[in-house]
């Protein structure tokens, strides 16, 4: 304040509302920048395409048999792979050092994208005979996504797709072979508690790891 200003009251006696609004806007901007850097919009477009593919497949597929399980599972694994790849950071170390809010952004993005995938795929399979129904879809998608996050944390975000798609390669013969281990949850019925627990554990572990550590890029 200069001497010219002496005797005049400050224009804003209470700066708190402006600060709060500024913080809110800055937070939104940070979230938007994070989403742009992770190609979240492209991911959502791919997820919509997956939902359309699921609806088309369910329309043409037989209602029972191995194919009735295999093709929806493939689409769910594809959706999870795409979600996992969004964890890849284009900035690497500088962002990790300077980004105080990064774990929260990672958590929010991961949960939001998984929720969006679940919603879109459930909408895609609505009024169609999806083997396992929505509970099966929730379990399988959560497990696949958890594997994508785990692979992202271990190998790097760009290679996160290896987790769900590699697991899918094991699952497809397991469907025909009727494996009974709950760790191959897609081969178990949707009401199997062991399979649900295993898929849930994988999702929680993957989400925790990718939130705390992020997807380290070992291979670029």
């Amino acid at each position, binding site marked *: 304040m200069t001497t010219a200003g002496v005797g005049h009251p400050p224009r804003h006696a209470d700066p708190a509302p402006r600060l709060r609004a500024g913080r809110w806007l800055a937070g939104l901007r940070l979230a938007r920048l994070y989403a742009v850097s992770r*190609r979240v919009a*492209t*991911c959502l477009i*791919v997820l919509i395409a997956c939902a359309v*593919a699921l609806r088309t497949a369910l329309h043409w*597929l037989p209602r029972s048999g191995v*194919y009735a399980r*295999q*093709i929806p599972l*493939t*689409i769910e*694994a*594809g959706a999870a*792979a*795409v979600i*996992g*790849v*969004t964890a*890849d950071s284009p900035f690497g170390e500088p962002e990790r050092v300077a980004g105080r809010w990064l774990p929260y952004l990672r958590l929010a993005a991961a949960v939001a994208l998984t929720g969006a995938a679940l919603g879109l795929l459930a909408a895609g399979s609505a009024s169609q005979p999806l083997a396992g129904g929505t509970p099966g879809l929730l379990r399988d998608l959560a497990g696949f996504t958890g594997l994508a996050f785990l692979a992202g944390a271990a*190998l790097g*975000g*760009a*290679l*996160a*797709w*290896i987790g769900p*798609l*590699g697991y*899918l*390669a*094991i699952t*497809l*013969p397991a469907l025909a*072979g009727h494996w009974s281990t709950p760790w191959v949850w897609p081969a178990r019925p949707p009401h199997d508690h062991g399979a649900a627990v295993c898929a849930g554990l994988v999702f929680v572990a993957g989400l925790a790891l990718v939130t705390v550590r992020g997807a380290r890029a070992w*291979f*670029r």
Partner: protein
Amino acid sequence: MTAATAPAAPPAPARPARITLPAPARLLRLELRRSIMPWLAPLLAVLFWLTTYRPAMANPPFWNVRSGMVQSHAMLAFAPLLAGAAAWAGSRDRRRGVADLVGMTALPPWARQVAAWAATTCWAEAVYLACVTVLYVVTAHQAAWGGPLLWPVAVGATFVAASCAIGFAAGVLLPGRFTAPLAAFVMFLALAGGAFALQANISYAQIWPLNVQGAFPADAYGIFYPYLPDLPIAQLLFLAGLTAAALGGLGLPAAAGGRWLRAIAAAMTAAGLAAAGTGVALAGTARLEAHGIVIPALHDAASDRPTSYTPVCAHTAIPICLHPSYRALLPDVTAALGPALSQVAGLPGAPVRVTQVALTSVQAEPSNGIAFGGPVISGRPPVLYLPLAGGTLPGQGTASAITENLREQDGPVILSALVGLPGELGAQAGSGAAEATPNPGSRHAAQVAVLDGLVKALGMVQSAPGGRIQHGTPSGANQELAATRRFAALPAAARHAWLATHLAALRAGRIPLSEVP
């Protein structure tokens, strides 16, 4: 001491002259070192173990059973992941932001891209062939007969190259973080779509690279006759064509290289597309035959000559001879069919020998299904040709289950062939399922009654509820049932004596129901 007076340093030991590799080889060596595939090799090995090795080891050590898995099971796991890894390698320069930097080098971009694809493919082939070698070495130690089938390995190895080429082209043309997962995902969907088309009996879908001899069970080919290479040749043509087209397509843009290089790329693309189309067209002409899938344009008549072997025989009333690889099943087959054979031994038209064959007849069915014919008596002197394909293999199941299965399935069919019943009617009658046949006809009534009597007497099939086996119209059913019971109640010697006298007339349909003792 000054520098001038210092003693001369001893001469450095001469380094062995390094071999200077030509530029493409140096580039390939660099790419081999930079490839991600060595890091993916353990994952691929684990996938092979889970999806191929374990199921293969769960089956008996038959080369045809285990060899097919290196094409169908292994490639289902490998192809999508390799497509993704190759897409990752193809988009590497753009992903790292060095596309402009490497674009300024003297080497044409197409040559660099082909070197990167070749490095990925070399690693992938090494992993695949190493896994197959382990499986084949273990099988070689366990198998009692035959040798490894190499056609499925050739198709698998070519599919590895094709997956890498398609994924790599996708990575180069659409670089981005989503390219690799989408390439792998689309490959999975394409394989599922191919299986779906095959199940819908679309003839061109036979080209599907995971297809090993169509709907034939794995033990139905490659033992009694050589493995038919018709379908594998068409698949190789298709996959090699796809590989050439994908790689050639990368050399078409103006920035890919000089005029000559682009002309070569264009020729390669055209040749690849032509080869792939030819493969699909050839697969469309495929047809099921008794020894596998035959494509007339590719078929070699030499493949129709049976494989020579010395059968193993059981010295029963009618000798039973099996292929040496089925030696372990001989006691079970003898126990299952021995009673029926001893009952018919020496009768006119009865077989003098039982010989195992791969199949007697085969017929395509909807949904990529296949139907096999049962045992057949033919030739002069008559020989009973016994197919065991599609059933239990040696080492699978318990001896009692195998014996029971053979007795209930094949015993009645053999007896119905002996009494001269038409195939379908005989199978229904002998299985006790003739309730579904409203009127077998009075001409066959005596044959049905004799067959059912034999089946009942030999305990080949469980009685229908209430102990009734019904045939014919309601008015004739009681007569048939009575004849069946009378014949079953006869002593074995009396049955044999009656059959020895009346079998020819019975087969000709000249015995009325009332004359059945």
